């Protein structure tokens, strides 16, 4: 197939404080190319469309098979993983921008540490540290495993947060990924030791109450995690605990 050259419009920014600008790139079309492979090509020969020398584009990527979560960016205005974004399926010119709700480090690379901070605040781990060998933990039932596995597929790409109308600087909403991890670790028989603390954390400002149930999270999730189910389930558990705490006080 004699395909036309591929046109990219990329929003660039040299540093967090500097102004953003657009640059256009033209690449020869070849079969199977995706956005990351295109960015690699540009890095090999960093010339803009009109032949001016420029710097290679900074972006995050690692696994190139949609399991590491690094390469999330806005492609034609929509948040998605760049490695699985096939050029053949995209409208041209292909617009690439950094995720809009995270501080830009440079070009397409953003600081997504807010997710890590959120995961720490809800204690998204299984507490197994002790002063002696605690031995084997309780068994996870088959049913719980089937519930937990899809949740454990989260790759921390932050797409669910980027597309959420409630995740912004005014609300400081925690986002769907973290709420879903609360469900994952509360399902785990040993992880459940911290269940009350996790649910308590989600009652703080920016907690689960900020969810407006627009359901964009579950639409965009590249790993098909049942995020709205997690929000409903955890929402119910948080509510139950809030009322219980009120009565036990």
């Amino acid at each position, binding site marked *: 197939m004699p395909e036309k050259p591929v046109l990219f419009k990329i929003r660039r920014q040299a540093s*967090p*404080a500097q102004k953003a600008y657009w640059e256009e790139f033209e690449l020869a079309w070849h079969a199977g190319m995706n956005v990351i492979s295109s960015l690699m090509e540009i890095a090999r020969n960093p010339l803009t469309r009109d032949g001016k020398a420029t710097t290679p584009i900074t972006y995050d990527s690692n696994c190139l098979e949609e399991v590491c979560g690094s390469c999330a960016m806005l492609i034609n*205005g*929509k948040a998605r993983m760049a490695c699985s974004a096939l050029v053949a399926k995209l409208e041209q010119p292909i617009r690439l921008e950094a995720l809009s*709700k*995270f*501080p*830009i480090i440079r070009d397409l690379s953003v*600081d997504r*540490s*807010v997710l890590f*901070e*959120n995961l*720490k*605040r*809800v*204690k998204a781990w299984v507490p197994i540290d002790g002063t002696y060998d605690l031995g084997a933990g309780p068994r996870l039932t088959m049913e719980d495993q089937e519930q937990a596995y899809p949740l454990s597929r989260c790759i921390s790409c932050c797409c669910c*947060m980027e*597309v959420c*109308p*409630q*995740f*912004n*600087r*005014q*609300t*400081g*909403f*925690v986002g769907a990924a973290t709420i879903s991890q609360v469900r994952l670790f509360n399902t785990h028989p040993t992880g459940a030791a911290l269940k009350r*603390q996790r649910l*308590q*954390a*989600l*009652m*703080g*400002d*920016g*907690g*689960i*109450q*900020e*969810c*407006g*149930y*627009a*359901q*964009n999270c579950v*639409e965009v999730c590249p790993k098909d995690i*049942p995020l*709205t*189910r997690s*929000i*409903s*389930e955890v*929402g*119910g*558990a*948080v*509510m139950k605990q*809030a009322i219980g705490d009120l009565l036990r006080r």
Partner: protein
Amino acid sequence: MAAAPSTAAPIKLPGGVSPLRAGQGHSFLWRRLHSLTGIVPVGLFLIEHFFSNAYATKGPGAYTKQVAFLSSFPFVVTLELLGIWLPILYHSLYGFYIWYRGDSNIRDYPWAGNWMYAAQRWTGAIAFFYMGWHTWHLRFSGVHILTYPAAAFGKVQLEFHSPAAVAFYAVGIFCASWHFAYGLWLFAAKWGITQGPVSRRRWGYVCILIALVFMAVGAVTMHSFMTTPQQPVEPAASELDSFTMR
């Protein structure tokens, strides 16, 4: 159990969303109260209001009797204040605050749930301004219908004297019905009542039905007001009427 402070200070870049403030603030209480007030008492009042107004379909006499019945409640103004006005005011004002803080993005992500998210804000706002007009005209100005129940039917009829006013009432009823029905759906989803996609979809069908029932009752009621010959609205005459009615 105190969390160990992380040794490496995270790089602070401008423009980021702040992480969860675990254990801080009262927004959980206020936001959940907003959600609850939409059902109890505002939703319950909406049911009562549509039901009571539907007495118009049985004629001015039956309508006057229902208005007289509601007006006869002990502490009626206190009931109105605590059961209707304050909850609606809280639900509305906090609702505007929620809208102000959200960033609707249907242009980039035109998905059904996202449209409903935006529609819930627009219908709420329209219903709010509609209710402002509606209560000012019928409750707080003109003939006092709590004192003169027999004037109520005619007073409502006067509301429909221009096509623009009729359209405004139709839009108000449509928005209130939509907002309440989707509010019920949202309540069930957020409070963990409908947890799975199947139950959410089924409850969605029920909510659509609820919306349609409200809209139909509203339309039939409006039709009754508009097709009945104009009833008197003067307090003196109506007072006399209400005596003869009893």
